[in-house]
């Protein structure tokens, strides 16, 4: 179980995490969704004891991360965003070393190393130096090193960044299996579809703030069933003014080349919208309508699309 209360982290004048609170339970995959720089990795860093928080309470399986760091780290597994492996050691040596770092010894360590390498599909090349591995294989090994000690709480910091589709599918399967076995998984990502397909509950963060939290269904419901309409073309300021006068139309963002609208009623409203744009001097070149989704929620709440 992960409990975070009022987490704030400042780096000088920069507030990386601002009053974030949430709870993740055993057996669930809790997603932290947000663009790069939103504060996800800092939250993971604070939770794993690497980054001291400015204020806030962080607990892992009831152990205070600041007050009881050794106990907290013992039950915690971390798969960092960047690869953290010894390239000149073999897969077996890497996993065994990290297992040892988490306190595994002797026969149990040997068995766990063999098990996780088998599970991650690397047992066939277990004796090879990691420098010969493909990017996807390294990602899986990075994952294996984080779970070798069977952690009760697992922190996964964007583990699929730069991974080929096949390895990504396998990694996501493994995350589901771990959660099914009772582990509490905190999963950060900026991939919407990954969050939608994997996470039982989600928190959306942007600029260090938690802006929404709930199950996927709950979050979708917060869009109010409104579709997201993107219009590309040429839009003078008068267009925005005209659109704001329409009922059940929310102008999420507007600039000269693109308008994003949250619209109740979907395609039925298009003639009315087109007429308003046309009548106020605008010109539409491309139209895209999206069903209610995490993406539309994110755009509704932040006024921007999810940044890479």
């Amino acid at each position, binding site marked *: 179980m992960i409990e975070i209360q009022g987490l704030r982290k400042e780096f000088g004048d920069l507030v990386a995490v601002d009053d974030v609170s949430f709870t993740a339970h055993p057996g669930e995959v809790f997603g932290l969704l947000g663009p790069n720089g939103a504060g996800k990795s800092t939250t993971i860093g604070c939770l794993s004891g690497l980054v001291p928080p400015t204020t806030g309470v962080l607990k892992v399986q009831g152990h205070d991360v600041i007050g009881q760091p050794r106990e907290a780290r013992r039950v915690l597994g*971390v798969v960092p965003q960047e690869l*953290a*492996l*010894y390239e000149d050691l073999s897969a077996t040596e890497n996993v*065994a070393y990290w297992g*040892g770092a988490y*306190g595994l010894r002797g026969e149990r360590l040997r068995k766990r190393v063999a098990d996780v390498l088998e599970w991650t599909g690397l047992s066939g090349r277990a004796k090879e*130096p990691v420098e010969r591995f493909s990017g996807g294989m390294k990602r899986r090994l990075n994952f294996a090193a984080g779970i070798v000690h069977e952690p009760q709480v697992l922190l996964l910091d964007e583990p699929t960044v730069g991974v080929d589709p096949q390895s990504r599918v396998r990694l996501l399967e493994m995350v589901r299996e771990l959660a099914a076995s009772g582990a509490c998984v905190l999963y950060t990502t900026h991939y919407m579809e990954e969050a939608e397909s994997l996470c039982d509950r989600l928190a959306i963060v942007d600029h260090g703030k938690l802006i929404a939290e709930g199950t996927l269904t709950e979050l979708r419901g917060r869009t109010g069933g409104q579709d997201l309409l993107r219009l590309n073309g040429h839009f003078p300021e008068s267009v925005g003014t005209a659109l704001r006068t329409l009922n059940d139309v929310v102008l999420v963002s507007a600039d000269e080349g693109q308008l994003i609208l949250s619209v109740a009623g979907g395609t039925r409203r298009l003639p009315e919208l087109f007429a308003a744009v046309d009548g106020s001097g605008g010109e539409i070149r491309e139209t895209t309508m999206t069903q209610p989704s995490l993406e539309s929620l994110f755009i509704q709440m932040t006024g921007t699309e999810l940044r890479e």
Partner: protein
Amino acid sequence: MGFLLASVHKDLVRRLRDPAALVLWLGIPFAILTLMTLAFGSGFRGGPQTIQAHLLLVDADKSVVSGLFVNAFGQGPLAELIRVETVKDPEAARSQINRGEGTALLVIPDGFGQAVIRRTPKELKLWTNPAQQILPGIVEETVGLFVDATFYLQQLLGDQFETIAQGMEEGTFSVEQVSGISAEVDQLIDRIETRVFPPAIELTTAVIVEDTSAQDQLGFGNLFFPGVFFMAIFFFAQGLSDDVWIERKNGTLHRILRTHGGVRVLLLGKLGAGAVILTALSCLSLLAGGFLFDIAWSRMPLAIIWSAVSGVALLALFTLLQVVARTQRAAVLVSNLAMFPLLILGGSLFPTEAMPNSLALIGRWTPNGWALAHLKQVFAGSVGIAETLPALAVMLGMIAVFGFLTTRRIGGRFVGAG
């Protein structure tokens, strides 16, 4: 304990999979030693060797005079400077000098003795080896001096030479002739003695006997070898120390900070692996040194222990310097800035025995200078285990302090914001 051993094993395996780096670290100082040995023209064993010219000499005359000429090369200090090899066959001698097997070839022609006595011209032939720079000049100068000396003898004792030559032709000397020549030579010497050997300065000499027993034990090898060996330890320690940056770059340092094993064990593992490598280096180098420089074998175990512990202390110091820097480039600069002055002051490049007293005093207060001085004392047998144990305790204390500061720094600013 288990994870500590795993950490040592991990770093050892990583090092052994890069043997080229180990060989290079070992090779640089020993290349310097070899070059210094060659530059100073000394062999590995014992003290400095005298440079000798090799003169091939063909005496075709075989007279008393030519014999005197040949023997003159073997007199006094000249004998140490020029080694004379008498060769019978002039052609064989020419071939030998053409092959570069000698400094010069001097041919004394038949009739040389008679020509000297009769005061008639005769030509001596001297060939020199162009492949040598200095020694042929020495031979040429020496032969020139001998020719000049012969000329002056001719001028002073020409009449006596004539009498001797005449007697030799007649096959007999009368008593009057012998006593006459003896008296004339005696008078001549009395007459010219005040000019040739003027008592211009009366010199009183006093020999001050210095205690050179300690210096006798320090030949070229003994003087330079410990310093160069410590230089190898420096290179190893510095080379091993930048591993913290590799760990940081690989992300493994961040990862270990998130485990309950922690950075303290990681650092101890690095020092442990360093200790194994430095012990192996010490064994290898000191055994080679023992063979080359006649260091007593009984002193080796203590010297190896002392060197290995000193090396680990240097590794701990350099690791601290690495983590103090904000970037890897700055770390290289900082460790080089520390290493080269320490190498120079501590007596690794130039023996402290050859330094001015003030500089040597500063050098002895550097950690490596102190360690090197102790190692030399171990080699010389002037300190044993009893004297080394307190010094080892000091060294271990230094390792603990450096390690503590490094751990604090890694756990703090070194890893960055994460």
